[in-house]
C-alpha cells in the first residue's frame, strides 16, 4: 500500500540553523506515527513543511504516492491534511463556530451556513464526546477546551492526515486519555495520524511506528512494538536517561513560607482562591498538583508579587509580605525578589523572557537593578562573563550569549530562566510548569537542578500538571481544585487514584 505521507530528502535552514537536514521517511496509511526528538530537533519544522506553512529549501513531499508541491496551508488543507499546532491557532476573540468556519465558510454570506455548521459541530461533539460549546468565545475556554476546538476543527474538515504537535503538553491525564480515545477512533476510520510528543509513555501507548530526530536529521525509525522507552530515550538524547534522580534524604529546615487564609477574587467578585493555608520549609519541595486553571497560577502570581490577594496573610521567613496598603502590584515583584523569592513563571514567553532581547540580556531580567553600577549603567563585560558561565553550567544550547532568545528552543529558553533564577540564590523558589514542552534530556537536567537547589536548603514551591514530575520532585503534595486546597499529603502517600479524586474536587475529610 502507498504510504500516506512520504518525506524525501527534506532540508530547511533558518539563517545559520539547519532545522531539517536531508530528512526522509514514510508514514503508513491508517497508522499512528510518532515523531520524537529533543527540543530543536526539527520536528515542528518538518510538520510545518508538510502543512505548507514553511517551504522546504530542497526535497520533496509525497501524499498518497503523488509528489506534491505544498506551498500554503490552503493547499495542504485541500489535500486533506490537518494540523493541530504546538501553539493553538485560534482567533481568541471569536467563537468556536467562527473559528471552525474560518477558511471554510462555504459562501460569501456567513448567516446562510452558520446554523448548519453549528448543528454539525454539536453532532460531532456528541459523537466524539468532545465537551465544547460551539457558541463559546475562545478566550473564555480553558486550555484543554481550546485543544478540543482544534481537534473539532480537523474533524469538521474531515482531515485524512492529522498532524498533532505536542497536543498533550497542556492536558491533564484524563484529557490526554480522552484525546487518545478519539485518535484511536480516527485510526479505525482509516485516517493517518502523526503525533509529536516528548512523553515516551504516550508513544508507547498509542503509536504504531516511531521516527526519532536529532539535530535536524532522522536518527532512527522503529516499530513501537519492537522498542522500549529506554531505547527511545537513548536514541533521542544519545545517552541513557536516569529514570530515578538521586536526592538527599528529606530533612526540612526552618519554616520559610506561611500562607494563612489567602483569598482572591477577580474584578467581578468571582472567587479564584479561597482559604489557602499551608507552610513551606527550607530544603523541601512542595508540589501543587491539579488540573490547570484551578488557582495554581494565581497562587504563584500572588506569592511572586505579580498580583495582590484580596485578603489573607503571607509570612516569609517570619515577616509579612507587604501586600497591604497597595492599590496595584506595580513593582512588587522586584521587592519580593529582593527579599529572596525566585520565580520561574509558567508561561515563559509571556512573562519569563523578552523574546527580542539576547540571551545575555535575559539573564539579568528581573535583576536589572542588581547589575548596575553607581551611575545606573550596566557593565556588559561582567554580564557577558556571568552569562557564559550560566549557559555552560545549565547546558544551554546553542551556547551563544548574543543570540535572540526567541530563536532558542523552548527547552533551552526554560533553562535560561531557571539558570537566572537559581543564580540569584533565592530562599524560596516558585516554579510553574517547569518542563512544559521540554524534551526528556532537558527535563532530566532541569529536575537535577531543582533537586540540587532543594538539597542546598532552598524552599521550593512547584506547580505542575504532570503527576510524573510531581512524584519525581516533591516531598509533599498539595492538591488544588476550584481555587481551594483539597488535600495535602506527604510523598510516601502518593497514590494516583487518590490524587485524581482530590483534583476532581473531592474534599479532604
Amino acid at each position: 500500500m502507498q504510504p500516506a505521507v512520504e518525506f524525501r530528502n527534506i532540508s530547511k535552514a533558518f539563517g545559520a540553523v539547519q532545522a531539517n537536514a536531508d530528512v526522509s521517511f514514510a508514514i503508513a496509511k491508517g497508522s499512528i506515527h510518532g515523531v520524537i526528538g529533543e527540543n530543536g530537533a526539527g520536528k515542528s519544522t518538518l510538520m510545518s513543511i508538510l502543512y505548507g506553512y514553511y517551504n522546504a529549501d530542497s526535497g520533496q513531499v509525497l501524499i498518497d504516492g503523488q509528489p506534491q508541491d505544498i506551498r500554503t496551508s490552503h493547499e495542504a488543507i485541500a489535500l486533506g491534511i490537518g494540523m493541530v499546532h504546538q501553539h493553538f491557532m485560534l482567533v481568541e476573540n471569536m467563537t468556536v463556530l467562527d473559528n471552525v468556519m474560518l477558511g471554510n465558510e462555504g459562501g460569501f454570506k456567513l448567516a446562510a451556513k452558520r446554523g448548519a455548521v453549528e448543528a454539525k459541530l454539536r453532532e460531532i461533539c456528541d459523537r466524539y464526546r468532545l465537551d465544547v460549546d460551539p457558541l463559546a468565545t475562545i478566550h473564555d475556554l480553558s486550555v484543554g477546551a481550546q485543544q478540543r476546538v482544534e481537534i473539532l476543527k480537523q474533524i469538521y474538515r474531515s482531515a485524512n492526515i492529522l498532524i498533532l504537535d505536542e497536543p498533550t503538553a497542556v492536558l491533564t491525564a484524563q484529557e490526554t486519555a480522552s484525546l487518545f480515545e478519539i485518535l484511536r477512533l480516527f485510526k479505525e476510520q482509516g485516517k493517518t495520524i502523526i503525533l509529536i510528543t516528548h512523553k515516551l509513555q504516550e508513544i508507547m501507548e498509542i503509536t504504531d511506528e516511531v521516527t526519532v530526530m536529532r539535530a535536524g536529521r532522522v536518527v532512527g525509525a522503529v516499530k513501537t512494538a519492537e522498542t522500549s522507552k529506554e531505547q527511545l530515550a537513548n536514541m533521542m538524547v544519545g545517552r541513557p536517561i536516569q529514570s530515578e534522580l538521586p536526592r538527599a534524604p528529606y530533612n526540612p529546615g526552618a519554616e520559610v513560607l506561611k500562607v494563612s487564609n489567602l483569598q482572591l477574587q477577580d474584578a467581578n467578585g468571582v472567587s479564584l482562591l479561597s482559604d489557602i493555608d499551608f507552610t513551606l520549609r527550607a530544603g523541601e519541595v512542595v508540589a501543587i498538583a491539579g488540573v490547570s486553571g484551578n488557582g495554581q497560577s494565581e497562587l504563584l502570581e500572588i506569592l511572586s508579587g505579580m498580583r495582590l490577594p484580596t485578603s489573607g496573610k503571607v509570612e516569609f521567613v517570619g515577616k509579612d509580605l507587604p501586600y497591604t496598603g497597595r492599590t496595584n502590584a506595580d513593582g512588587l515583584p522586584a521587592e519580593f525578589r529582593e527579599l529572596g523569592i525566585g520565580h520561574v513563571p509558567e508561561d515563559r514567553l509571556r512573562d519569563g523572557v523578552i523574546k527580542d532581547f539576547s540571551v545575555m540580556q535575559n539573564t539579568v531580567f528581573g535583576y536589572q537593578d542588581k547589575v548596575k553600577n553607581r551611575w545606573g549603567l550596566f557593565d556588559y563585560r561582567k554580564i557577558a562573563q556571568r552569562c557564559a558561565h550560566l549557559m555552560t553550567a545549565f547546558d544551554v544550547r546553542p551556547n551563544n550569549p548574543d543570540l535572540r532568545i526567541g530563536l532558542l528552543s523552548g527547552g533551552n529558553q526554560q533553562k535560561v530562566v531557571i539558570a537566572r533564577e537559581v543564580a540569584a540564590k533565592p530562599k524560596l523558589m516558585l516554579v510553574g510548569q517547569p518542563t512544559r514542552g521540554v524534551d526528556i534530556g532537558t527535563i532530566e537536567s532541569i529536575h537535577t537542578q531543582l533537586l540540587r537547589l532543594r538539597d542546598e536548603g532552598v524552599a521550593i514551591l512547584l506547580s505542575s500538571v504532570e503527576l510524573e514530575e510531581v512524584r519525581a520532585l516533591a516531598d509533599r503534595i498539595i492538591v488544588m481544585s476550584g481555587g481551594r486546597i483539597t488535600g495535602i499529603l506527604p510523598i510516601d502517600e502518593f497514590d494516583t487514584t487518590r490524587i485524581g479524586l482530590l483534583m476532581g474536587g473531592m474534599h479532604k475529610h
Partner: protein
Amino acid sequence: MEDFQLASIIVSTVRNAPVLMFAALAGLFAERSGVVDIGLEGKILASAFASAAVAYATQNPWYGILAGMAVSVALAMVQAFVSITQKGNQLVAGIAINIAMSGLTFVLAQFFFQQGGRTPDLRNARLFDVVLPGTAAVENIPVIGWLYGHLIGGQSVLVYVAFLLLPVVHWVVYHSRFGLRLRACGENPHAADAAGVSVERTRYLAMFVAGVLCSFSGAYLTLVQSGFFLRDMSAGAGYLALTALVFGNWRPLHTVLGCLMFGLFGAIQIQLEGVDLPVVGRLPGSLIQAIPYIVTVVVLAGLMAKSVAPKAIGKPFVKSR
C-alpha cells in the same frame, strides 16, 4: 430661535461627518486586517486633488470621483506592497505617504493650474445637492419641511452614500466571509493562515477597500464641500478619522458615532463663539476651537471602556518565531 440653532447644529453635523466617516471606515478595513492606516490623510488629500483636477478638466464630477478612487487605491496598494509584501514598517509607510502627498499635490496643482497649489473653481463640475421631490410643497410646514428638505433631502449623494455605508460595512465585517477572514487576519494572522486563509490576499483586499472608501472622503471635500482643491485642505481629517476609529474600538457603529461626535462638537463650537455663557462668560474664540479635542480626551479617559486594538495590528505577518 433656539430650535433653529439646534437645526443648524444637526445639519452641520450631518454635513461635516462624511469626510471623517469615509476615512474612518476605510481605516476600519485596513486596521481590522492588521495594517495600521496612518496614511489616511495622504490618501484623502491625493484623492481630493485628483477628484478636483479631473472634474475640472472633464467638467464632470463623476469622472472626478473615479480619478480620486484610482489615485487613492493606487496609494493604498503602495502601502499594501510596503506593509504586506515588503513587510516594512506600516507607520513609516503611512506617514511617508502623508508627507509625500502634501508635497506632490501642491507641486502638481501648481504645475497644471499655476494658482498656488489650488485648482480652479469647479463651478458646475461640483456634485450638487439632491433636492427630493416635493420639497417645495412641504417647505413651509414647520419641522417637517426642514426635516424633509434640509436634513433628509438637500444633501449631496455622497452624504447618503456615507450613511448607507454603515449598515453595509457592518454586514460585511460581521456577517460575510470576507469580514470573518478580515477580523481573523487582524487578530491572529497565524491562525488565519493555518486555517487556509491567505493573510496577504486578505490584507491586500482590505487595503483595496480602504483605498476605495477613502477616496470618497477626498471627493467629498472638493466636489461637495469646497468646490476646488487647496493645498493641505484635508487639515488633519485623516488623523481625526483614526481617532474616531480608536474611539469606536474598531467597530463600525461606534466609529461612525465617533465621527458624528466630532461633527457635532465642531457644530456646537461654531455656535459658542461670541456667545455669553453662564458662569464662564464669553470664551475666547481660540479656546473654543479646542473644545472638540478636549472633549475627546475627556471621553476617552473617563467614559469609554479601554479600547482594544486588533491584536496583530501593525505587525507584518512573518512566519517565524
